[in-house]
């Protein structure tokens, strides 16, 4: 069996995995990272969305072996020192979830969306979330939450969204995301 080394939410794991094991199965079944969920088997729902090196991926369409040497952030790795990430806070404040099953994927995708476009208008948010289905909310409050988060995450407005190096100086979310998009600063 192939051997992989993956950093997930700040912890490094070295494991043997079957070649066919999906990243989401590895997260849930081998690492116990059950905050990330599976909603479909055709890569349509987005419930499984996580970040790989700062970019959103549907973890049901990535093999665990493809994550070898990469850094994964899940919904469980967003809050820092008991502080919710601004995106999580916005989802709460705007009642952007009901059953909450789509929420982890929705939040991870929304972060990716803001990394690409820090100040999206309503339509841009809707289009940016097109690959993530929610059956409960009708999306209106999700759209509100993402736009609210974009306000909160303006440079200087909030704590860093993810960090790979605990020693790195605090950066704003958008700065960090821009850095991730351009491929900089991540090991």
């Amino acid at each position, binding site marked *: 069996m192939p051997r992989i080394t993956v950093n997930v939410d700040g912890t490094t794991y070295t494991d043997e995995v*079957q070649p*066919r094991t999906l990243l989401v199965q590895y997260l*849930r*079944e081998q690492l*116990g*990272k*059950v*905050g*990330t*969920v*599976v*909603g*479909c*088997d*055709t890569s*349509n*729902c987005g*419930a499984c969305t996580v970040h790989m090196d700062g970019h959103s991926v549907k973890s049901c369409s990535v093999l665990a072996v493809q994550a070898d040497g990469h850094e994964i952030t*899940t*919904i*469980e790795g*967003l*809050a820092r020192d008991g502080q*919710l990430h601004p995106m*999580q806070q916005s*989802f*709460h*404040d705007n*009642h952007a*979830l*009901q*059953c*909450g*099953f*789509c*929420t*982890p994927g929705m*939040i991870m995708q929304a972060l990716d969306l803001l990394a690409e476009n820090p100040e999206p208008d*309503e339509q841009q*948010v*809707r*289009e940016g*979330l*097109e*690959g*993530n*289905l*929610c*059956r*409960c*909310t*009708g*999306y*209106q*409050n*999700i*759209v509100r939450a993402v736009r609210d988060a974009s306000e909160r995450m303006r440079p200087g407005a909030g704590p860093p969204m993810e960090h790979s190096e605990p020693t790195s100086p605090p950066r704003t979310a958008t700065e960090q995301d821009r850095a991730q998009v351009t491929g900089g600063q991540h090991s």
Partner: protein
Amino acid sequence: MTAIPTTPGTEPELGRARKRKEDARLITGSTRWTDNMALPGMLHLAVLRSPIAHARIASIDADEARRMSGVQAVLTGRDLADEQGSLPCAWPITEDMKSPQAPPMAVDEVHFAGEVVAVVAARSAAEARDALDAIDVDYEDLPVVLDMESALADDSPLVHSDLGTNRNATWTFDSAEAGTGGDVEQALADAEVRVERTFRQQRLIPAFMEPRSVVVDPTGEQFTMWSATQVPHILRTMLAMTLGVPEQKIRVIAPDVGGGFGGKLQVTPEEVITFLLARRLGRPVKWTESRSETMVSAHHGRDQVQKLALSARRDGTVTGLKVELLADMGAYLRLVSPGVPILGALMFNSIYKFPAYHFTCTNVFTNKTPTDAYRGAGRPEATFAIERMMDELAAELDMDPLELRRKNWIGRDEFPFTTIAGLTYDSGDYEAATDRALELFGYRQLREEQARRREQGDTVQLGIGVSTFTEMCGLAPSRVLGSLSYGAGGWEHAQIRVLPTGKVEVVTGVSPHGQGHVTAWSQIVAERLGVPFDDVEVLHGDTQSSPRGLDTYGSRSLAVGGVAAVHAADKVIEKAKTIAAHLLECSEDDLEFSGGRFGVRGTDQGTGLADVALAAFAAHDLPEGIEPNLDAEASFDPENFSFPHGTHLCATEVDTETGAVRIRSYVCVDDVGTVVNPLIVEGQVHGGLAQGIAQALYEEAVHDEDGTLTTATFADYLVPSAADLPEFTTDRTETRATSNPLGVKGVGEAGTIASTPAVVNAVVDALRPLGVDDVEMPCSPQRVWRAITGTRTSSDTAAEAGGGLGSMDTGGGFAAGSQGGSR
């Protein structure tokens, strides 16, 4: 009603937009979905399903599968035949209803594609799935029955040959016979104007986001089942009755449940099979379905053909309504399948004063996935049909559709009003909701723009759709359920425990799966007992901690379960009052309870609920015969349904060249009675709208001519994404329900029920000058385009049983091919 105590100077809990307690875990991934469970020694179950809609099982060869790595057991229906029982149907709507045997796993014959034929239990889910591929099933094809109308023909093949018919039951209501009104045939014969239409309610898939999952642990004194269910209490009782297991030996837990919408109101084959496997193997067993399994095997919704005739006078006054339905049960009767259309039977007359009404529904078996409750269950069908008919009548009379409705609806000063269907609507104000909606919508301006565009012959036409709906919810008065032959009551239960430290636990019998009950119940009890919101914990969804309840569906939780919590709180106050009077050495009559405190009238003396709770706990000095706690429980059985209503207005832009429909604006004003938490209410409305609009424009479960579901993934079954839906404008008017002390009516289904006809009416309204008087749902670009070009007339639509986006008609009347949309 007694005044609700509030702490002076603080914002009242009732009506407050509290952010939800539930969110903290859900937004951080600290969740308890059933599939998250992992128990020591747990085996994984994989299910082999029939790919064929109707066949005899000639043989099953599982020898190779049994030898595969990690496989503990492979079982077929034959292996479980003696112990698996028949899945329950709790709603025998007529005495002569035909019920087929419904084994959880097929034994000799399969009746729909997706039915369970074998299961594998293995060490890992992957090994279990691998072994499925090694099972060889030999099927002998039988003729498939797919179309309801031909299913009823004398020479039709049969879904269940032993029943001798494909007719499940026929249920009738007639106002002349019931003594609630006149004779419809007479009304139709005397009509100055008659409108006749046939509508098709396409088959839908509830599509909750969390796939179903079950874990059964047989290693304790009780069998413990975790299931992604809406109905842990019903499930427990039904498992006991189906399998003959003593009820006290079963504990059912609904942990975090990711949506239901009626789709998890069920006792599923897989729940029973997982239970049996765990019992047989003596080890915990887990089954989690793939989405493709959900689509074919979890019950579907809607699927009716609705034939309506409406009579009226030239001035617009309606005089009679006749409704004839065919409802597709699919291959088996599930928990409430036959009763779903009956939930709509009393709602076709809606808010209008029809003097004569007749309803008949014939339920039909076909070789398709069973149907059952889906958000609204019967009432969206009724609302769609009547609201479409009212628009058609308005067009016929060249009247404004709202003017026509005003002319016929129950006036605000006419409540309580007993309808032609025999229900008593306790309260409502259709004028207020409509006036507010018109104002928010800009109705007059939009009509002017519409006229301009029509005049100019724009390729993109504007349509305005109206839906003034009501629904019966708060299911349900037990005596009414009894009169409808339902197998259980409709009460709900709550218990309140006041802990020695003054904190409060509320145990409720409803079982939330996204609705926010923990927050809302905390508000209700905090307000009633005058304790802080954060001091209230709400327990639910576990038959051990919450022993009594009838669970969550039919917009019942607040109007029945929430009211039970109010009654339990009032009992707590009564109990505490006796002890408080004793402690304060005064008469109970001298005490008044407010803001969590018992005060002696006319003095500054008093004691808080927490002190009384501690005194009760210590029990050192209690009055004679008083037990040492403040706990109380209450069951509430409503006297009547509640009747939320509202006015929904939709403006669509329809491209007459491409058939594309865009919702330009959507306004709804709902009256759901008193509101406990406006944030949650608004969220329920949004989600409901999304599902109702999805029926109007996007979703359809399509079967091919062999009975194979061709829309079996999210690539083919078009659950709308954020980009497919508009921004909604929502508002509320408020008339209190008189049937419960909170004045609440329920909100879970309103958006879904009201929105579908508003959207379709808007589509048809845009195209009416082109001679279009109906567009079949979902109003895909192709359907709209065909309606415009007159490729097919609307009255032909009933016999056609399929076709989504991009589907093509075939000679047999069934659509072939799959929906063309994809993501």
